[in-house]
Structure formats: structure tokens, C-alpha cells
């Protein structure tokens, strides 16, 4: 219905603007891009360790048997649910422990242009923290990092996901 579409558009703009305000405030609070990147990762981590519960409850996905299933769930269910986009999965490593998520558009960066004095800023680094935190709660230690970014002039945005190890102990949801 039309009013729902209108609401979705309004709230997605508000979301984009809110994220932008967060990043620019961090840039003012911290003196260098590296520290901002770390803060974004940390914030994302704290979101991810909580978001996973909501995700598992709403999506009803079962336990993944391998990293390939995990990749599918991340791209086709999680990204779709929370950001309304479906990245494609490419560049699997031969061992099956690394893959790339290719985002053709990223709602976080609508209208954003990175100024010259923030060339090391990983603007959407919050997403990497979310992925890391969420997967840690389902016993997977992973590394997520941006290797291409449309904000920096690349044609697409690419997040590289690497499986580090299975977490055997049931650690409580921690805050870093």
C-alpha cells in the first residue's frame, strides 16, 4: 500500500541520516580515521551480539552445516531483512573458508561523499562489527572487512568474510 511505501522511504532516509550523523560525530570526537574505524567496529559488534536473537527468531533459519550455508543466510536473509538489499556471494577461496559479499548499492552511503581528509575512513565499518558479533554468538569466529568501497571510487562495495575458527565454549554475550 502507498502509505507503507512512504513510511519505508521516510524511515530509510532517517536511518541513513542517523548513521551519517553518528559517523561524522565520531570523526569530530576522535582525531584519526583509524580510531573511528575501531569505534564503528565495536559499536557494530555490540549491535550484532544482540541482533542475532531477533534475526534467528524472525527468520526461522536452522543451524548452518557449513560456511557456504552461512554465506547464503547472511546475503539472502539477513541483509535483505535489515537493509533491504541482497548482496551477491563471490570469490570463494579453494578451502571454502573465505568469500566476498558484493553490494551494488549500500543504503548507509546514500548522498555521502567522503571528504579528502578522511581517505582512511571505513565509513560503513559498523556492518563488519555486526557480522562479527552476530556470528560469534553462533559459535563462529570470523573476520569481516571492506576490500572495495564505492565511496572511495570503486565500482562496487565488497566485504571479505573469513572463517577463523569454531568457538567451542559457550561464551556469554560480552561487551568489548
Amino acid at each position, binding site marked *: 500500500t502507498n502509505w507503507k511505501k512512504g513510511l519505508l522511504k521516510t524511515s530509510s532516509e532517517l536511518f541513513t541520516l542517523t548513521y*551519517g550523523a553518528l559517523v*561524522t560525530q565520531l570523526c569530530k570526537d576522535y582525531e584519526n580515521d583509524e580510531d573511528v574505524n575501531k569505534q564503528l567496529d565495536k559499536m557494530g559488534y555490540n549491535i550484532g551480539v544482540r541482533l542475532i536473537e531477533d534475526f534467528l527468531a524472525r527468520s526461522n533459519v536452522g543451524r548452518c552445516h557449513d560456511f557456504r550455508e552461512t554465506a547464503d543466510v547472511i546475503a539472502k536473509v539477513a541483509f535483505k531483512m535489515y537493509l533491504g538489499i541482497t548482496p551477491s556471494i563471490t570469490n570463494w577461496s579453494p578451502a571454502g573458508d573465505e568469500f566476498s559479499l558484493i553490494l551494488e548499492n549500500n543504503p548507509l552511503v*546514500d548522498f*555521502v561523499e*567522503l571528504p579528502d581528509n578522511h581517505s582512511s575512513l571505513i565509513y560503513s565499518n559498523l556492518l563488519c562489527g555486526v557480522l562479527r558479533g552476530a556470528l560469534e554468538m553462533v559459535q563462529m569466529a570470523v573476520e569481516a572487512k571492506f576490500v572495495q568501497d564505492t565511496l572511495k571510487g570503486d565500482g562496487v562495495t565488497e566485504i571479505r568474510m573469513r572463517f577463523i575458527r569454531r568457538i567451542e565454549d559457550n561464551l556469554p554475550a560480552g561487551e568489548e
Partner: protein
Amino acid sequence: MSGSFYFVIVGHRDNAVFEMEVFSCCSRPPHVTAGHMRFIMLHDIRQEDGIKNFFTDVYDLYIKFSMNPFYEPNSPIRSKKVQFLGQKHLLS
């Protein structure tokens, strides 16, 4: 069609936020300042549709520009796109 146009965006304190002259024979680099806006066009020939389309496009551009979280209000705006729009709508 020849003619010259002077386009200015005027801020709340009657300051020129963005100024641009568009000549058909040569282009001068736009002198830009920043602020909030009234869009004013001074022109010496009638060009209703061109001006209307120019205003619509520049306004869209301005909105997108001000949505950039890194844009500091009252800092200089540098935009070559506006000059391109001037060429497109006012001089053709």
C-alpha cells in the same frame, strides 16, 4: 541562442551563497560561498522553460548535497555540476 545569465543563491543574511555567471561565449570559474538559499536568476533574454528546468535540477542537486553528513553548513560549496546544468538548460 546567445545571452548571458547570472545565477545566485542568496542566504538568510542576504549573503550570496552560490554565484555563477553563464556566458555563451566563454565560461568563467564560478565563485561560490555557502549558506541557505533563495535562488535568483538575472537574465537579459526570456528563457522561461530553460530557467525553470535549471532551477529544478539545481534544487535537486542542492538537496542531495545538503544530505551529505560531511557537509558543514556555511562552508564553501564547490560544484562543477551546476555549471554543467547551466550549459545544458540556459545555453542550448
